[in-house]
């Protein structure tokens, strides 16, 4: 349960950034492992790519691109917050990061289906 003192948009922006970062840390080694198959085991890579061509994998890919984009834009938001003069529209910046991430991930999904 979200404890009451955490129930505000900028805390959600923080937790999304933290969890997306952790999810990417878990994903990236698997990603590089699969990429590595291009050098070591081409047949296995081909069959994996064929297998991944199903709707569930596409939905998961959308999720991954979203995580990547939301972490990227959220990180840029923090860099702006910490390195430039303060803006009073922090909540709008956080909303814009999430919105942009949706646009990027949605665009990716439209491209692949």
């Amino acid at each position, binding site marked *: 349960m979200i404890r*009451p*003192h955490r129930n505000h948009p*900028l*805390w959600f*922006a*923080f937790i999304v950034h933290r969890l997306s970062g952790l999810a990417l840390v878990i994903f990236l080694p698997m990603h590089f492992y699969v990429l590595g198959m291009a050098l070591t085991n081409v047949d296995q890579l081909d069959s994996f790519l064929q297998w991944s061509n199903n709707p569930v994998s596409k939905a998961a890919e959308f999720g991954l691109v979203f995580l990547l984009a939301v972490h990227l834009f959220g990180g840029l938001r923090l860099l702006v*917050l910490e*390195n430039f003069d303060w803006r009073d529209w922090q909540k709008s910046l956080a909303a814009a990061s999430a919105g942009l991430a949706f646009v990027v991930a949605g665009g990716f999904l439209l491209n692949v289906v």
Partner: protein
Amino acid sequence: MVGANNKPEETDQPEVMIEVSVWRGDAEAGGFRTYHVPSRQSQTVLDIVTYIQRNLDPELTYRFACRVGMCGSCGMTVNGKPRWTCRTHASQVISNGKLTIEPLRNMTKVKDLAVDMTPFFDKWVEAKGAFVPTKTRHDEIEAIKPDSKERRAADAAVECINCGVCYSACDVVAWKPDYLGPAAINRSWTLVNDPRDGAQAERLKVLASDAGCSNCHSHQSCATYCPNLLNPTRSIAGVKRRVMVAALKGEV
């Protein structure tokens, strides 16, 4: 309507009661006790606590002094959120006729609603929150332009009443008890911007230390709950920039 003796005037309306759960106990153990308090016009959360102590349970311990938002001693956790209780109207926070009142988080409980604020104030000292003069009374008064960048930065952060609400809202303080916390760093930031102060190098060293500004995750709970509408996150971001410049110059 409330009469001169603070008792409701005679009306045909049944009295509206608020169900108030108050945390009772000490550092070792405790739990909630429920009281029923009559609702009044313009009643603050502190009024409710005072009503309980005067009329229902004289052993209830809590802290307050000014009742007008000046002294910073009445901080409590109200329905899960840290607040100054003397300036929090009950009508703003009551949910379904109920109210939960607990001591502030991140500080050791002393008894009931009173917490030990010693570590909170010790951190102000640790963060070099005291002004170190560089002149004597015989020198000329140093002119500080009111519209200089430094003066405006200090002005924006200086009206802190030491209530501990931000400290109680900060998750990093809960996760890492050594962290100086939003109020102490906010205070230091006002001095970082004071050209008359003579302890800048030492102050920046503390702010750059393991207990310092780099712990802050900028999730802005401190700024969300500060009753004086200060923004410790902005001050800490300013400190981070100063520390970064000092680190690049090899000063910290």
